[in-house]
């Protein structure tokens, strides 16, 4: 695979391109490839793609798109050009399994295939802001979920009661985040559980400052180094990727495409959604990616569901699982907040999609999360419960599509619910939802059971 040092050199020597020119070229290129590869939305609405030929064409479109565009370095405003051979070699050489954690908490996180029957790997939480008073408690709550394979860090605005501002305070806060994570997993009785550093900022010093086998990030832990939308990278992240590649930590990336942005509609988002995780693998060595397609209006919680978004997401993940080694995850991001039945219904839809399309489960949280108002352990346990039921019941793409249609019908006239702060709907001391949330949970379980999901009620 092309070395990170080679990528670094290309960020300095590649063609100089103004960002606006890149953005518009991005759209024009993707538009041309939509036509060339006939990436068309089917006439009949569905949630899960069943057209294997389309998946193959979409993959070819994604590779050609990456070859034609390259990756844009926003630091130097240069294009990192890649040859088709470099792209294909990277796809072939990437691992399909990542070993993480240590001792009895060591886990193998691996790529899944479409409709596979093994249980999913799980990252149950964080990637959401919390206040420092809750830090240790929240981590230990998520870590004590038995199926947890790794747990990701979180953002916060104050440390030691003081507002974090500027690189030195950020470095200090970054180290506190990882220390809280280490303490939290110890409290949960799982000291070897892999943790993933969630960058509280993307400066190189913040990213690298947490490296510390004794008190910080271990070689068996990971770091989130996400490629930016529209195939954009930054030198500070690349610097961190180079360091962590030698150190041994695994790296993950947010590699979904946002329909409504410069990729255009869902057809364009399919192409970007396939190209982006491959680019993240090449640029930062991100082998685990949360993948697929989101829509800008859903990310902004304007609407719970938009037609064809789930379908587009399934095309991307099926392509990545069939033709690359990308280890895909479903980032479960309902528009409704925690503590609500709507959140659980939305989360269930995404947890149903995951095993069918070949995705593991990652950090459920409200899409527009604010401090202490993004997630509770219940949503994580719920998504595991639902995905397990889907696998045990032997759902295939058609069956899952039917079930998703029923839930979508239930949601069609609903508006995203605001939800509650974690302490207002969840008891972190006893690791259980508060009575109202428990009631909502049981009610949603009954609803899904009534729709045909074999789930204990």
């Amino acid at each position, binding site marked *: 695979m092309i070395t990170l040092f080679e990528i670094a050199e290309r960020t300095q020597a590649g063609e100089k391109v103004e960002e606006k020119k890149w953005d518009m070229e991005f759209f024009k290129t993707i538009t041309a490839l939509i036509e060339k590869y006939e990436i068309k939305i089917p006439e009949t609405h569905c949630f899960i793609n069943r057209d294997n030929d389309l998946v193959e064409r979409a993959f070819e479109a994604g590779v050609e798109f990456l070859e034609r565009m390259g990756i844009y370095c926003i630091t130097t405003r240069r294009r990192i050009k890649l040859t088709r051979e470099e792209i294909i070699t990277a796809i072939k050489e990437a691992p399909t399994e990542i070993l993480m954690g240590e001792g009895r908490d060591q886990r193998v996180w691996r790529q899944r295939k479409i409709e596979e029957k093994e249980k999913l790997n799980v990252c149950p939480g964080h990637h959401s802001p919390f206040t420092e008073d809750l830090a240790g408690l929240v981590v230990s709550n998520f870590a004590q979920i038995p199926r947890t394979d790794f747990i990701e860090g979180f953002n916060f*605005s104050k440390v030691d009661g003081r507002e974090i501002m500027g690189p030195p305070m950020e470095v200090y806060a970054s180290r506190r985040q990882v220390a809280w994570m280490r303490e939290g997993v110890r409290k949960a009785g799982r000291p070897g559980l892999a943790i993933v550093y969630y960058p509280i900022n*993307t400066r190189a010093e913040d990213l690298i400052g947490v490296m510390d086998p004794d008190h910080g990030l271990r070689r068996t832990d990971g770091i989130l180094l996400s490629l930016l939308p529209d195939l954009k990278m930054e030198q500070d992240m690349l610097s961190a990727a180079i360091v962590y590649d030698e150190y041994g930590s695994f790296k993950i990336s947010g590699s979904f495409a946002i329909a409504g*942005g410069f990729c255009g509609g869902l057809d364009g988002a399919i192409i970007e959604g396939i190209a982006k995780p491959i680019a993240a693998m090449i640029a930062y060595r991100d082998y685990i990616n949360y993948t697929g397609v989101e829509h800008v209006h859903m990310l902004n919680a304007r609407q719970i569901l938009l037609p064809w978004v789930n379908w587009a997401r399934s095309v991307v993940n099926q392509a990545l699982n069939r033709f690359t080694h990308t280890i895909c995850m479903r980032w479960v991001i309902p528009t409704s907040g925690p503590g609500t039945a709507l959140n659980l219904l939305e989360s269930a839809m995404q947890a149903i999609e995951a095993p069918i399309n070949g995705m593991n489960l990652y950090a459920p949280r409200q899409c527009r999360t604010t401090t202490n108002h993004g997630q509770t352990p219940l949503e994580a346990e719920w998504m595991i419960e639902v995905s397990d039921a889907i696998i045990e019941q032997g759902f295939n793409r058609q069956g899952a599509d039917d079930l998703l249609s029923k839930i979508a019908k239930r949601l069609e006239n609903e508006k995203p619910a605001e939800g509650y702060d974690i302490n207002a709907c969840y008891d972190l001391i006893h690791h259980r939802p508060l009575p109202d949330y428990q009631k909502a949970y049981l009610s949603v379980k009954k609803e899904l059971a009534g729709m045909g999901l074999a789930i204990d009620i």
Partner: protein
Amino acid sequence: MEISKLPQEQQDLLKSLKKAIVAIDEDTAKKVAQDIVGNDIDPKIAIKYAIAGGAIAVGDKFDTGEYFLPHLVMAGDLMDEVGKILEKNIPAGQLEKKRLVVIGAVQGDMHSVGKNLVSTMLRSGGFEVHDMGVDVSSMAFIDRAKELNADMIALSSLLTTTMPYLKEVVEDLKAMGIRENFKIMIGGGPVTRDYAEEIGADGYGKDAIEAVDEAKKIFS
């Protein structure tokens, strides 16, 4: 904007221009704009009806998912070009000044998607926008706003650790005694209306569509 009292031929031209802008049909829009100038139609009416009205229609198309961010960029470019053609006939001093917004992601923040959407939507919404990109320091915002005599500084932050830089801009403006010279609007993932009020910003946009409404409300 009511145009029914104009002669039918003028009404048709204005409707054609608006239609071409909404369809992002560059050639037709420029040609019709020239025809409007040639027919001595009040350019102020043309700007209000075709450009401002077209901008609203373009925004609606984004809202309904028919248009995407690149369409907003193209429509914004086209509206600028058409505006320049129409403005030729407006005597100096009578040109209605667009509200000028300096926008960017604050220091330490490299996230551009939300900021780009707001920037483009504001431009389509009739504002003149100077986009400073990402990782912009407080003083860079202030210097540019002073230099351009801007009406508003719009700030984006996606990280909790870059939110303090939103406040820094407000505080720096206060310290320099020029806080009242500029309206401040903020937004971004972890930012809330409560936070905007807490730091003394004038407005907050939850998303790009709300940001444009908020900006218009601030200047209404």
